């Protein structure tokens, strides 16, 4: 079943003319002929879960917005910076009107009158394409006052970021959109009550909003038949890493991971096997080659101790050292930590320093325990989950590949001429323990 990708490479699909010929904006007309509550009901029936990472039900989130005539906002989170994720880029570049149509329908259902697309600054070509599409849609009367003769009035502004991973976090995104440093806010209050400019705000991912027209078009109940009971519909997965055909694939939720990694993406190069993979972007705890037969949906991934996240599968084969992967992961989060909360700011920095010691051979296996405890103390102790997003994967790598880390330490110590890390002496009864790490 292809929904988002069914005509993605149609030449000129980014123009209004072709999009309308492909049936575009027909679902908007259908939505506007219904009451907002009925549209909301369709979204809730479809059980469409947010595609940005958290997997919260979109219809439910939209229903949290208070009723009333105050200014309400819809923000599309297009700050796609989760390492390994590149699905929104494809949607915005090739089918921008689908996103715009979805936003108008979502705005109608949630009763918002101003909307924004926050796109990451690096996506310059995609932002230009979107900007043109927005201008076309406004020209055709899909954006503005009394859209298509209905009561709906909506403005749409494209806002370009300037390079900060943290701005993908919804409250940091709002701060950034207000022209501040992108620091996350304390929750609650949640954006549905107090978001952008302190007004009620609905924030959704590009893929979620792009799916909205199709949900309305086929009906929520029909959409809910696709996929599994709790993970309905199709999902774009971005497969990257050591596979022969990296790229975006649209799968039905519940497809086995093996089929995605081997069947669609071609698997690792000849002679290599999958050692580990991130199932949902670099923030998700890694799973090993043994987990390849799990079904790819929200609940199965959560049960396996990881998460579906943004749907980015990064495949790591045997030839890659887990120590390197852990270091690259930690370096990224150290750079991207906004610095507001101490556990994250310091914890990411210390983890990088310790991993560098592991890399160079200055560490002992005891450092792995310290690192695990640092990770443990980051989790749940910050305003947002950026620190957790480093601690969970790095912690899982140490846990699942501890042997490899220890082996790496011994080899690196040997190369550096430091001798074995642990003196091969049993502690003496009543005597002092030999000091670890100074055996050379």
């Amino acid at each position, binding site marked *: *079943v292809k929904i988002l990708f069914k005509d993605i490479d149609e030449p000129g699909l980014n123009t209004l*003319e072709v999009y309308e010929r492909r049936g575009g904006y027909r679902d908007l007309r259908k939505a506007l002929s219904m009451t907002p509550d009925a549209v909301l009901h369709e979204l809730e029936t479809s059980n469409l879960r947010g595609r940005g990472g958290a997997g919260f039900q979109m219809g439910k989130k939209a229903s949290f917005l208070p009723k009333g005539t105050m200014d309400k906002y819809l923000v599309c989170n297009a700050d796609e910076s989760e390492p390994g994720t590149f699905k*929104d880029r494809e949607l915005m570049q090739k089918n921008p009107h689908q996103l715009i149509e979805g936003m108008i329908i979502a705005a109608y259902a949630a009763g918002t009158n101003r909307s924004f697309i926050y796109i990451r600054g690096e996506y310059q070509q995609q932002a230009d394409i979107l900007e043109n599409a927005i201008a076309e849609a406004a020209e055709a009367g899909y954006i503005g006052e009394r859209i298509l003769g209905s009561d709906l009035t909506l403005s749409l502004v494209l806002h370009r970021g300037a390079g900060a991973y943290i701005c993908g976090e919804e409250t940091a995104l709002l701060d950034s959109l207000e022209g501040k440093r992108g620091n996350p806010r304390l929750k609650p209050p949640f954006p549905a009550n107090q978001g952008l400019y302190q007004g009620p705000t609905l924030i959704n991912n590009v893929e979620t909003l792009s799916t909205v027209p199709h949900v309305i078009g086929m009906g929520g109940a029909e959409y809910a038949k696709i996929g599994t009971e709790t993970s309905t519909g199709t999902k774009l997965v971005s497969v990257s890493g050591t596979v022969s055909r*990296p790229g975006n694939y649209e799968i039905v939720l519940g497809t086995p991971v093996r089929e995605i990694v081997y069947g669609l993406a071609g698997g690792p190069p000849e002679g290599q096997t999958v050692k580990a993979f991130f199932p949902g972007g670099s923030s998700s705890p890694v799973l090993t080659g043994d987990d390849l037969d799990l079904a790819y949906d929200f609940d199965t991934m959560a049960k396996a101790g990881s998460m579906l996240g943004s749907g980015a599968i990064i495949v790591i084969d045997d030839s890659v050292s887990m120590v390197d992967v852990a270091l690259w992961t930690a370096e990224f989060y150290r750079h991207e930590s906004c610095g507001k909360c101490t556990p994250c700011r310091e914890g990411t920095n210390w983890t990088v320093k310790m991993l560098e010691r592991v890399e160079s051979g200055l560490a002992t296996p005891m450092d792995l325990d310290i690192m695990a405890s640092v990770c443990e103390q980051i989790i749940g102790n910050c305003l947002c989950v950026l620190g957790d997003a480093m601690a969970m994967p790095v912690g899982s790598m140490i846990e699942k590949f501890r042997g490899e880390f220890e082996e790496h330490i011994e080899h690196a110590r040997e190369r550096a001429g430091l001798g074995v890390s642990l003196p091969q002496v049993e502690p003496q009864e009543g005597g002092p323990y030999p000091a670890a790490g100074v055996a050379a």
Partner: protein
Amino acid sequence: VSPAVRRFEHGSRVPGWDEAVDLAKDPAKVPDPATTPVDPDLRAEIVAHMAKYPDHRSATIPALAAAQRRFGWLSPEAMEQVACVMRLTPAYLDSVATFYDMLETEPKGRHDVYVCTNISCSMLGARPVLDALLEATEDDREDFNVRAFECLGACDIAPMASVDGVYVGPLEPGDAEAIVAAVRAGREVLPDRQLIRRPVADPQANTAVPGPPAAFGALEDPPVPPAGAEAAAAHGAQPMTDDETREPGDEQTDDEDDA
């Protein structure tokens, strides 16, 4: 350590963290429009950005980006002009500018070359590519701002780089010279390896499009906005009934038969 993040003593990312503050100096105020000359084009651009938002402060990032395009980097002079138009203090703008990676508060090269060094790219050899690009531009820091960057969201063409916003990949260290030469000559960078011309990887996508999808690189025009009209006209002849377009049921291709 990757050369990506500039770090000073004790891991601080803020230059001058250890310099004492001059307590005798008054804090910078919102610049006086009567005595602050502002580039008219820049002013017009910032004012247009401010008009788009309910709160004009939201235009901070677009305004700083505009100033950076105009001045090359966010010099104190540039900051003052933005502050003057937006009625904000330069210190506030500085706090914002230092937060974002694409805004530079120190002189930088004219052309931005961002090399992604995140997990997927690094696994496939991004760091040698970065080194090669750094080496190729070593003697020309005025023209080139080569730096490692966080995940740029293009792991399908890993290892990749963004050259003035144009994504190219997969790259090899040997491509560095070609990239540098193309930028110097003002030519398109590696036209056959630009992301924007790449069709989607999913072999079962485009089920609603008649005919096979164009092969990689075979698209005549990248789907860049204004050019779209011609492409649309060229393909307008294909009959496309409405029934074909929005029927989820009729494309039940076997998702299971690949493997």
